[in-house]
């Protein structure tokens, strides 16, 4: 209440009784944030592209299954999904598997978070990929078929290469989201950046939350900016001549 004692140097101080420094905690946190986000993104891109493509296929049954997948993962909050993977799944599996997941699986929080965040994001990527394929003029699909391509070939050589270049701008924002959403992993105990911030401001240096939170926010801003620049570069390289690609930036 009006008597805040500023100490921007807090970050360089030693954490009482641990022999470690606050900045080391933040760097560790950043490491986990980046690792979680990138690993989840790999899963999301692969699964999302697959499922988005399947949704546009003529096979009603397959397409319906893919739609169900997307709806399921899009309509449950991420944090609840993480809880389902972390607290519920090991209990409903056969006992041995459940015990393995809980005790012997290496880095259980990290792996659970990567899979959970990856699947959550894959549903959103799938939507973008589907939209991209649907945005192509129907003529392209017919052209492929007229050339005697099989369905697989039509997708492989005609539709997907075009669709992917179209969906890159919307995927940029999904890529940004995966970094932001990785913060939710703290709920199952991944010691990522926001977790470290909470740990520091909660117990170790509760007198200086503004400094610590500002620094963490700046790290996130730098991360968002870097991702944005990287994707802008990729966007420019892959732009389809003659197409106004979507997305605002």
């Amino acid at each position, binding site marked *: 209440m009006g008597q805040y004692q500023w100490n921007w140097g807090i970050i360089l101080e030693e954490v009482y009784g641990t022999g470690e420094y606050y900045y080391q905690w933040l760097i560790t946190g950043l490491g986990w944030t980046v690792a979680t986000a990138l690993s989840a993104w790999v899963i999301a891109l692969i699964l999302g592209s697959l499922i988005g493509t399947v949704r546009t296929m003529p096979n009603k049954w397959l397409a319906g299954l893919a739609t169900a997948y997307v*709806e399921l993962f*899009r309509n449950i909050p991420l944090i*609840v999904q993480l*809880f389902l993977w972390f*607290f519920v799944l090991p209990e409903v599996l056969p006992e041995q598997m459940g015990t393995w997941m809980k005790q012997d699986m290496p880095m259980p929080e990290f792996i659970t978070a990567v899979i959970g965040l990856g699947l959550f994001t894959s549903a959103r990527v799938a939507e973008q990929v589907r939209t991209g394929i649907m945005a192509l003029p129907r003529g392209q699909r017919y052209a492929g078929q007229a050339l005697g391509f099989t369905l697989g070939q039509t997708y492989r050589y005609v539709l997907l290469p075009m669709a992917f270049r179209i969906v890159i701008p919307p995927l940029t924002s999904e890529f940004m989201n995966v970094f932001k959403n990785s913060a939710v992993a703290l709920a199952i105990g991944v010691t990522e950046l926001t977790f470290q911030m909470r740990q520091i401001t909660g117990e170790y240096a509760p007198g200086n939350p*503004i400094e610590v939170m500002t620094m*963490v926010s700046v790290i996130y801003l730098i991360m968002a900016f870097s991702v944005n620049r990287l994707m802008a570069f990729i966007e420019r390289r892959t732009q389809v001549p003659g197409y106004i690609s979507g997305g605002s930036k």
Partner: protein
Amino acid sequence: MDFNFSAIVDSKDFLWEGLKYSASLTLFATFFGIVFGTLLAMARLSSIKPLNLAASAYVNLFRSVPLLLVIFWFYILVPLISGVQVGADKSAYITFAIFEAAYFCEIIRAGIQSISRGQVSAGQAMGFTYAQNMRYVILPQAFRNVVPLLLTQTIILFQDTSLVYVVGATDLLGAASKVANRDYIPVEMYVTVAVIYFTISFVLSRLVKRLHTAIAVIR
């Protein structure tokens, strides 16, 4: 693994309280987020440079950081700066309204930009002031065009309210986790809230889709 249904029934009142809080948080943040977002959108499209820059900075700032981080910021700092006492439940209202405004702003901005220049000129030709033009010509059309997007954002917002759990607020998830930890029934509780979130979000998103088609036909 036995699924304990009676435990869910026992805790239904508490879960209902949590759901009511989630819903009120969603409605509050949607309303004020749209109001504030509209002002921001107008500022972003304004020709007054400082206003334009300030609004852009605001929107980009909040769209670049995790919502969780913003929740912690407001939770700890609103009382510190203002000297007003707020608990987790109350600070979340402010957090979400301010955070979501940045997202609503971008949707509304797109809506305003979708109005053809001719409309704006027509309004000006009729002698409308800037405010009148916004009020009677641009905003009504802009809003109608983006209603489905605004509603979709509201569904996302509803799901995002589950994050207030981390600061100990008793939303739907918070209520469930409190019961789960007290009575050792995590499976029952988390499956139940997942089903509730899914049902609500899914039904709402179907309705939005139908609305979208309806609007598209009129246009």
